[in-house]
């Protein structure tokens, strides 16, 4: 596994040598998208609490960072690295508040409330139009890097650091407690685990990385717009994580990069080539429904079982 990871890392680091800049740009964005997906997996795949409002934290991180580094909007000119961290911290603070209210309840309340959040936060953009710039958003100044090459390596670095931190968390005793809650909340509680505290902890961590990813996006695209709160982005995150296999981190990582490239690179080409009278989102949702029916446990687990069945046949 370690060799495979190292090999992939070398491959990713070598990409700028072979890929033209336009594709490199998309690949870098795919890495940031992967941070959103694995942070979603940390909450949903490990503690079993279905968060439907992950884009709330992506959008929050994006807008907080964008405002803090754009003097024209807020009068503040924070260093972009600090602004990105501020985006993550704000997102996790909101996560804490929401988590304390909803995660002490069992069952569906958490999903229902988080499902509403992105739609509510999206309205803030329209209510305070002068500050947030309405549906068009605004241009971000003082971004951390300017060339595509720098941006590419920086997002690769952020993905790597996030992945390592999250891996360490899920491999630790805390991660074991997360999984105990997922498998049986009653049992976990009877073992003396404060389930609410650990669920909230997972939610704070998950929202922090989502906020960082959102702040990265605005530093990458130089603009911030309400689509970062959007439900379509949310569904894309869910699709990637589920396709990759929940509760594995690596699966959702691969799922994220494949799905993101498929959506922004291959799918558009395909539709233009055949000139279908539909847009790429329809195709995406149709794929999602098909996957849900054909492979309810995700690609990762499906492949794993398939490999197991082959190797057991050989014996």
């Amino acid at each position, binding site marked *: 596994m370690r060799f495979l990871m190292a090999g992939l890392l070398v491959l990713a680091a070598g990409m700028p040598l072979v890929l033209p800049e336009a594709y490199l740009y998309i690949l870098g964005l795919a890495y940031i998208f992967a941070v959103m997906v694995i942070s979603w997996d940390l909450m949903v795949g490990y503690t079993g609490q279905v968060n439907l409002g992950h884009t709330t934290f992506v959008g929050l991180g994006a807008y907080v960072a964008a405002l803090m580094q754009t003097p024209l909007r807020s009068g503040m000119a924070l260093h972009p690295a600090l602004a990105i961290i501020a985006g993550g911290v704000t997102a996790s603070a909101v996560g804490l508040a929401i988590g304390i209210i909803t995660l002490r309840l069992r069952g569906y309340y958490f999903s229902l409330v988080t499902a509403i959040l992105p739609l509510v936060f999206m309205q803030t953009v*329209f209510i305070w139009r002068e500050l947030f710039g309405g549906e068009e958003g605004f241009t971000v100044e003082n971004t951390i890097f300017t060339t595509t090459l720098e941006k590419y390596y920086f997002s690769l670095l952020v993905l790597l650091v996030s992945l390592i931190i999250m891996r360490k968390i899920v491999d630790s005793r805390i991660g074991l407690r997360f999984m105990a809650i997922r498998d049986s909340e009653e049992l976990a509680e009877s073992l003396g685990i404060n389930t609410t505290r650990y669920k909230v902890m997972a939610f704070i961590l998950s929202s922090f990385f989502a906020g960082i990813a959102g702040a990265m996006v605005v530093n990458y695209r130089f603009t911030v717009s309400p689509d970062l709160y959007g439900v379509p982005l949310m*569904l894309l995150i869910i699709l990637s994580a589920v396709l990759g296999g929940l509760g594995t981190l690596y699966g959702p990582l691969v799922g994220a990069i494949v799905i993101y490239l498929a959506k922004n690179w291959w799918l558009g080409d395909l539709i233009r080539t055949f000139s279908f009278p539909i847009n790429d989102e329809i195709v995406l*949702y*149709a794929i999602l429904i098909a996957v849900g*029916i054909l492979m309810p446990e995700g690609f990762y687990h499906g492949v794993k079982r398939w490999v197991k069945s082959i190797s057991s046949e050989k014996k």
Partner: protein
Amino acid sequence: MIETLIQIFLFGAVVGGIWGLVASGFSLIFGVSRILNFAHGSAFVSSAFLVYSLVNYGYNLYFAVLAGLILAAAIGTVVYALTKPVRDREVMVIILTLAFALLVQQVLLILFGDRGVSVQPFIEGVAEIGGLKVTYMRILSLILAVICLAGLDIFITKTKLGKKVMATAQDSRAAMMVGIDIEKIFLLVMVLSSLLAGFAGILYAQILSVNPEVSLKALIYAFAIVILGGLGSLRGSIVASFIVGYILVTTITFLGARWSEFVMLLTIVAILVVKPTGLFGVRE
């Protein structure tokens, strides 16, 4: 001032009645089959758009409404079929119904664009109540909504089939043991709820206007209503829908429509802090 009060009192009831049709179905589906149906708003908008285009093509309004209701029932059947194989996987149910809802929304966006459309009302004309002009259609839609909700309540509590639905909601395994075909009950509830949502959409399009994005917005109100009324409690949802209707109309009157989602969220949070089981909720 008195006019504003009458306006809030009346329009709140109208809006509450329409959202009550949506939320009672949502609550019924959840109560019986433990499915969070994110595609519930799809029946709402789709049937309204079908009625709108059929009337535009020159068909009779009542024929168009019938066709809209059939479409709503068909959507309910599709959602039932989609969720059947994954019913015990909470995440997959949410993904499938949400993907279906967004798919429908995209198709409607391509066909009709994102502008709002209205449907020709059942009756024309304006009544004057205390100096306030109210269209007859608003009064009629309130009456129709109340009739439907009362009918649903009678069906659930008084008829034999309704009691089977209740039994399935209380304990589907025990219901199966006493010989109830729970798959049939699941399908019945899904179709019935979609019919109510579709009818609500048609009424809504007759007094206001619908656009494809309403399908997701309708969900927010449905969520607020079922949390306020208590997850899975039908009567709770009906009462809560009128409370939410009043909150909504008051917000729109004094703050503007943009704030309605905000106030809904605050309402939900307040309920969850003070009384998590809602007004009539039962502990899970």
